[in-house]
């Protein structure tokens, strides 16, 4: 095995450069070489991205300096997502990164909360989430390291400009030995066995490889196109198939959370970046036409528009396999789930993290391919069900979409989850994949599903004590929140993009 | 001129002479056989222990075993107990017969036992020897021919009075026409051309003519050495014992069905139980101990009253370079001597006889036959020699000069090769002609403290649990068989009790 295995990544953007950086960092250079083929002509779908806390783990693994990354990508912090109008008009709940209640108690915290409610307290579950309290107060600080205090019960993620992130990663990846090839793919050649062998660029250049990562976007040039992996359609569960992204000037406070507002035929995102705000309307063309959607979007914005909304089309679903032969698809080429819960980058990242330990040393081993696909099945299915939940569990009377989603047939496993929560507040826990119990809890409660009963174990605690503990917790949270810096302030101190730009400018000027 | 041998003359009686006479009378009929012996020349009758091939010899002669046992005051023998050989206070048993049973895998049982030992099994391999089990419990019985797949038969031999054995065979031979001539041979007449012996001349002036001569004249080798100067190969550097003091003692109340060989200061002491008395003797190296010390040591350790004074015999370990020259073969002491540590004396006579019958020549005595015979007899002696040397060499004793000598002496290559193999794989890989097989070598070497490192690689094929079950099954079968046997003395009483002896000797 003298020749290093040639890895060829088709497509740049977040998916391509995340893959490139990860592979060039985590695979030994003497055995693997990484080449990325992208065309500046093909526009990257950069819509201002919100992420999940796993992003930080990924960056840490790659040795990326958080502050530097944030500066380079105009990033802000994210403590969760504020869902507005989802359950019913006027509703607002936050799906936080973190647990409700104190760290690690035996009985699920919300069961105690439920008992307090039935004893007459009118506390909301959000009162007991440190992350939510901080988010709503526009405050931010890093969570405590130890596992015992209330301010250790949360995590955070970022909002950033995905195309800047891609660029940032590109610098790193190239610096670590990845090769970039500019060009558009004209054709793809397979070898006698049917494995992908060569990319033929329009320039005439041939890029040969042993292993291919398809980051070609919706077209899925390699996995879907050449290797013919079937598409599994999920649009009957997730009918949204269009997006109208539009940037606006940031005028309001810098909120440490994403806002997702339900609209007539879909939902609108609001992602705060340092230099501007990213917005967009994700909607279903079955239930609203483009023009009406544009109207509805522009009418709902609370900040000055910086550019015209550009329509994107997509379909909910995925390739039945993410890895076929010597090709793994990442990002849009492997599947699409609307960014309702900021899972797009997560899916790319988790695919990379699953792939690296299973990365072939030569021709792919069917056993490893099977395991990878099994894991990706799990990731996709779990996210899909969670997203369906948002749509299904609504009580809005306005909008065909909502009526459709409320009455549609959903996967059995989801129905069962809803029913048992409705009965006694029970939520299953998983070992791997998203989403964990606190997430489900947020959405269930936030969208109006209140358990009819609480767990009998909550009755085992003397009521006095239970109420006192909860009260103390609320107070403790409020107190600590007050002591936290404002998000904007913290950000400025920690990772000010502008300052970075200025200093870079100064340096440039000084040279002149 | 007729080429068949018509007249055979055996010079010397005793066990060797009469065994030859009997065998020839039975198997080479129609010939005139004359045996010349002198009652003046005493025979070396020290109580003899034998090994199982003697049963074949008896069968060759058509001898009824019970009658034979009665007439020779014999007891039965299942093996030899070696005491103090490895170290003082230690004993082990050299069993007759097989170990365990054939497991039908092509790999001998011994290796499976060794495998069991290596994984923590019992260190006494003789739990898988019916003979040993019976010997330990003082039982004996002749077992009927067993059906295939069952346990092997029990192997045994006899302990008898050598002189009564000779007498028995004399009666047998004379009944079949062997002529005994009393007298001493004083001269030998050879053919001037061929050098073949034509006749022996007696003291009384008569001569006995013969076509073929068998020299059973003892150490002197009247014909083989004094006429033909075959030469003697001295083995005393490997086997320093050169004397034996023998003394009969009272019979044991319960005669043991085995011989005891007990290592002593400068040699070893035998105990051979017969029906009417017990034979004892101390075989020793005169350069390491004096005759007086031996006599004291011997008499001091007798179980039972001595019935006579110790008689000392002298000998030299070694063999005649050729057992057959021209028309004469040597048998018994005239062909060589190895101390009776493994009861091989009579066997070597028997081997010489049966081989002679096999090689029975025409009058001219083809040299090719003679060379082959000599080769094979040499081999017989050498393998027995090596076996005996092993008893001395493989010891932990360093308490006397004698044992220090033995422990550190150099040994023949043929023996050191066997020891090397044994250390590696529990077997010595004897040649087809070797008298002692792997079981015997194992008994001695392992008994004397040499534990092999490994065993036959293919013995690992069987699963552990199968092995354990089979071992347990075999052990159980052995116990059951031995349980059913009568006591040794009871067995003798039932089928072959000798007539009571009126005289002590």
């Amino acid at each position: 095995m003298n020749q290093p295995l040639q890895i060829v990544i088709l497509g740049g953007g977040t998916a391509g450069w995340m893959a490139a950086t990860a592979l060039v960092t985590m695979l030994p250079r003497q055995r693997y070489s990484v080449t990325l083929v992208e065309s500046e002509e093909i526009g990257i779908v950069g819509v201002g991205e919100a992420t999940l806390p796993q992003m930080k783990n990924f960056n840490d693994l790659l040795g990326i300096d958080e502050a530097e990354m944030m500066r380079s990508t105009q990033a802000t912090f994210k403590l969760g997502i504020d869902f507005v109008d989802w359950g019913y008009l006027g509703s607002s709940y936050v799906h936080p990164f973190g647990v409700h209640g104190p760290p690690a108690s035996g009985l699920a915290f919300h069961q105690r909360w439920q008992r307090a409610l039935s004893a007459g307290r009118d506390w909301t579950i959000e009162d007991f989430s440190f992350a939510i309290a901080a988010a709503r107060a526009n405050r931010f600080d890093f969570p405590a390291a130890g596992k015992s205090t209330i301010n250790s019960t949360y995590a955070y993620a970022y909002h950033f400009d995905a195309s800047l992130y891609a660029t940032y990663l590109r610098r790193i990846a190239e610096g670590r030995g990845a090769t970039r090839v500019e060009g558009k793919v004209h054709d793809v050649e397979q070898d006698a066995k049917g494995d992908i062998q060569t990319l033929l660029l329009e320039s005439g250049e041939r890029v040969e490889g042993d292993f291919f990562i398809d980051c070609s976007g919706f077209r899925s040039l390699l996995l879907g196109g050449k290797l013919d992996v079937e598409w599994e359609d999920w649009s009957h569960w997730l009918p949204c198939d269009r997006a109208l992204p539009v940037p606006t000037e940031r005028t309001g406070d810098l909120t440490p959370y994403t806002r997702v507002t339900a609209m007539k035929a879909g939902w609108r995102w609001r992602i705060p970046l340092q230099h501007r705000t990213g917005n967009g309307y994700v909607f279903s063309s079955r239930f609203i036409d483009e023009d009406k959607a544009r109207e509805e979007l522009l009418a709902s914005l609370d900040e000055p528009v910086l550019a015209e909304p550009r329509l994107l089309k997509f379909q909910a679903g995925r390739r039945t396999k993410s890895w076929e032969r010597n090709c793994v698809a990442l990002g849009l080429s492997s599947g699409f789930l609307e960014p309702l819960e900021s899972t797009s980058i997560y899916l790319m990242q988790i695919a990379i993290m699953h792939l690296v330990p299973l990365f072939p040393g030569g021709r792919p081993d069917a056993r490893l391919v099977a395991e990878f696909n099994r894991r990706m099945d799990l990731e996709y299915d779990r996210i899909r069900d969670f997203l369906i939940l948002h749509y299904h569990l609504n009580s809005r009377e306005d909008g065909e979409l909502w009526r459709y989603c409320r009455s549609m047939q959903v996967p059995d496993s989801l129905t069962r989850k809803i029913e048992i929560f409705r009965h006694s507040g029970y939520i299953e826990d998983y070992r791997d994949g998203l989403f964990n119990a606190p997430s489900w809890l947020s959405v269930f409660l936030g969208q109006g599903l209140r358990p009819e009963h609480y767990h009998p174990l909550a009755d085992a605690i003397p009521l006095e004590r239970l109420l006192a503990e909860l009260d103390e917790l609320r107070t403790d949270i409020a107190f600590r929140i007050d002591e936290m810096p404002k998000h904007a302030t913290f950000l400025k101190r920690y990772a000010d993009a502008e300052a970075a730009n200025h200093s870079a400018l100064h340096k440039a000027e000084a040279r002149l | 001129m007729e080429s068949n041998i018509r007249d055979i003359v055996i010079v010397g009686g005793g066990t060797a002479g009469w065994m030859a006479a009997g065998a020839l009378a039975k198997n080479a009929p129609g010939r005139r056989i004359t045996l010349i012996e002198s009652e003046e020349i005493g025979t070396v009758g020290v109580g003899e222990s034998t090994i199982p091939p003697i049963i074949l010899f008896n069968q060759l002669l058509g001898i009824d075993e019970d009658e034979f046992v009665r007439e020779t005051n014999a007891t039965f023998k299942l093996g030899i107990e070696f005491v103090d050989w490895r170290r003082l206070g230690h004993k082990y048993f050299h069993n007759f017969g097989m170990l365990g049973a054939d497991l039908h895998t092509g790999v001998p049982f011994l290796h499976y036992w060794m495998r069991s030992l290596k994984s923590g099994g019992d260190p006494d391999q003789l739990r898988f020897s019916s003979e040993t089990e019976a010997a330990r419990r003082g039982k004996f019985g002749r077992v009927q021919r067993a059906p295939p797949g069952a346990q092997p038969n029990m192997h045994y031999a006899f302990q008898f009075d050598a002189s009564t054995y000779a007498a028995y065979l004399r009666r047998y031979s004379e009944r079949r026409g062997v002529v005994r001539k009393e007298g001493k041979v004083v001269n030998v007449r050879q053919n001037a051309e061929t050098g073949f012996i034509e006749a022996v001349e007696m003291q009384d002036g008569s001569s006995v003519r013969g076509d073929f001569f068998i020299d059973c004249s003892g150490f002197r080798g009247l014909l083989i050495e004094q006429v033909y100067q075959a030469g003697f190969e001295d083995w005393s550097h490997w086997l320093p014992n050169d004397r034996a003091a023998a003394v009969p003692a009272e019979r044991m109340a319960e005669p043991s069905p085995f011989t005891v060989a007990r290592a002593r200061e400068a040699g070893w002491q035998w105990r051979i139980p017969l029906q009417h008395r017990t034979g004892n003797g101390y075989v020793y190296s005169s350069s390491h101990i004096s005759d007086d010390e031996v006599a004291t040591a011997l008499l001091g350790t007798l179980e039972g009253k001595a019935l006579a004074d110790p008689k000392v015999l002298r000998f030299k370990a070694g063999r005649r370079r050729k057992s057959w020259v021209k028309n004469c073969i040597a048998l018994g002491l005239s062909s060589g001597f190895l101390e009776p540590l493994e009861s091989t004396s009579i066997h070597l006579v028997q081997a010489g006889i049966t081989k002679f019958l096999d090689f029975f020549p025409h009058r001219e005595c083809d040299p090719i036959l003679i060379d082959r015979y000599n080769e094979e007899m040499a081999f017989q002696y050498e393998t027995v020699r090596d076996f005996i040397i092993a008893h001395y060499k493989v010891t932990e004793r360093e308490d006397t000069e004698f044992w220090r000598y033995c422990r550190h002496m150099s040994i023949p290559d043929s023996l050191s090769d066997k020891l090397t193999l044994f250390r590696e794989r529990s077997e010595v890989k004897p040649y087809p002609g070797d008298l002692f097989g792997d079981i015997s070598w194992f008994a001695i070497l392992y008994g004397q403290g040499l534990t092999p490192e490994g065993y036959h690689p293919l013995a690992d094929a069987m699963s552990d649990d199968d092995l354990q079950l089979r071992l347990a099954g075999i052990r159980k079968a052995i116990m059951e068989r031995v349980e059913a046997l009568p006591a040794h003395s009871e067995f003798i009483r039932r089928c072959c009790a000798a007539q009571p002896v009126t005289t002590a000797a």
Partner: protein
Amino acid sequence: MTRRVEAVAVVGRDAPLWLAAAAIQRSLGPAGVRVQAVELPSWLASADCYSTLPSLASMHRLLGVDEAKMLRAASGVPVAAQRFSNWAKGAPPYLIAYDDQAGEAGDLPFVQYWLKGHREGLRAGIEDFSLGCVCARAGRVPLGPADTEAKISASYGYNLDARDYAEALKQLVTNRGIEILSGRIADVKLDGERVIGIELEGGERVEADLFVDASGAERVLMMRLPGAEFHSWRDRFSCDRVLTASATQFKSLPAFTQISAFRGGWIGIHPLQDRTAITAVYSSDGISDQTMIAQLSVLARLPVSGEAVVSELKPGLLDRAWIGNCVAIGEAAVAMEPLAAIPLHLAQGCISHLVTLFPATAEEMPEAMPYNDVIRAFASNIADFTQAHYLLNGRFDEPFWEQSREAPATGTLRGKIDLFSARGEVSLRDNETFSEQNWTLLFLGGGIEPDGFDPRIDLLADQPLIELVQQRLRAVAELAKNMPSVDQFVGALGQLQAVGVS
């Protein structure tokens, strides 16, 4: 108008009965739940032994059981590992221990470093890097506190005299004021899928909102419910007999349970304080009970004394472990041969899930569905772990073992074996009892030699890899050296009693 579950009747026998009654009362008693125990005739023979996983200790903690006292009462001996011999021709015995933390060794699971080292000529086996295994081999008990620096620690299970243990638990239940009725069931009154009440032969009536069936393979309540179905696993597991017997105690107590395969099944040797328990698990197709009894001493290499009792084994599970208001726990829900020391763990796991899914109302119990789902997954993973031993067996020309190799297996298990064969990686699912380390020791011990390893391992140069591995080897050896021997551990139990601490 709904009401809470106020009365729970646990119907069953032996340790599972008492564990269930005590656990429910402990956690839900303060919430007003009243527990009754209906004790059916015991099925324990005098030679029976419970061989347990470390999880039992946490059940004891939950119940507030004095560990030392319990071990004294039940002749208990700590078990650092199980040792499997003769499961493959020519292969050495292998250990499966209970390491909690593998120890930090960089970014990858330690076995990856070992695999590379092994390929480069490292002679130390994987067991040398397992605190549990090294302790087991040295007759020592891996106690805490853990080496917090290297973060290496291990747990241990127990061998317990079954009757004594059950008796001690019964005493505990009695002391806690739980009502106990003893006898046989004469009648079970049903209303559709609900049990209204039961009547004992002595005439006593028991009514409750929730019934727990802890009656083992009898499934005395479950099988009377409409739609109850037992799904047999006989196609996957050939053994259908369990024999228990006793031998004298070991003079010096080993720290492991010995599990030896033989032609017809396997034999477990479980050291206890005052005797050694022997378990033989086998297929009646291959060996009759009489022959098994006759051969037991030889196969166990211990002289067996006293009674040898044979009972039937029917591996499998209920399609629905919870129907209506009746929940099965332990063997009543899932029956499995005791190869992986799981019988009590099965009871404990079910009890745990029952408490987590304790019905919120007495009238309707939709908790049954998630309970059934989770028990099915829980049982399936345990069955997979057990079956893996058989699938990987290397005994040839023996029908029992051929059959075991050819038996159908779940896709999950095949996938696990495939993945480990390819990369030395273990992929755990939800509701697993056994950890990555357990599976790794099983797979390596069972003879799988992975074709490759995690490519990231090559980022580490040879020298640092060697150092990392050596440091780990030393750390484990050092820790193990300071652990008490089993004899010392057991001796200390006695001392506590002498001092009067209970």
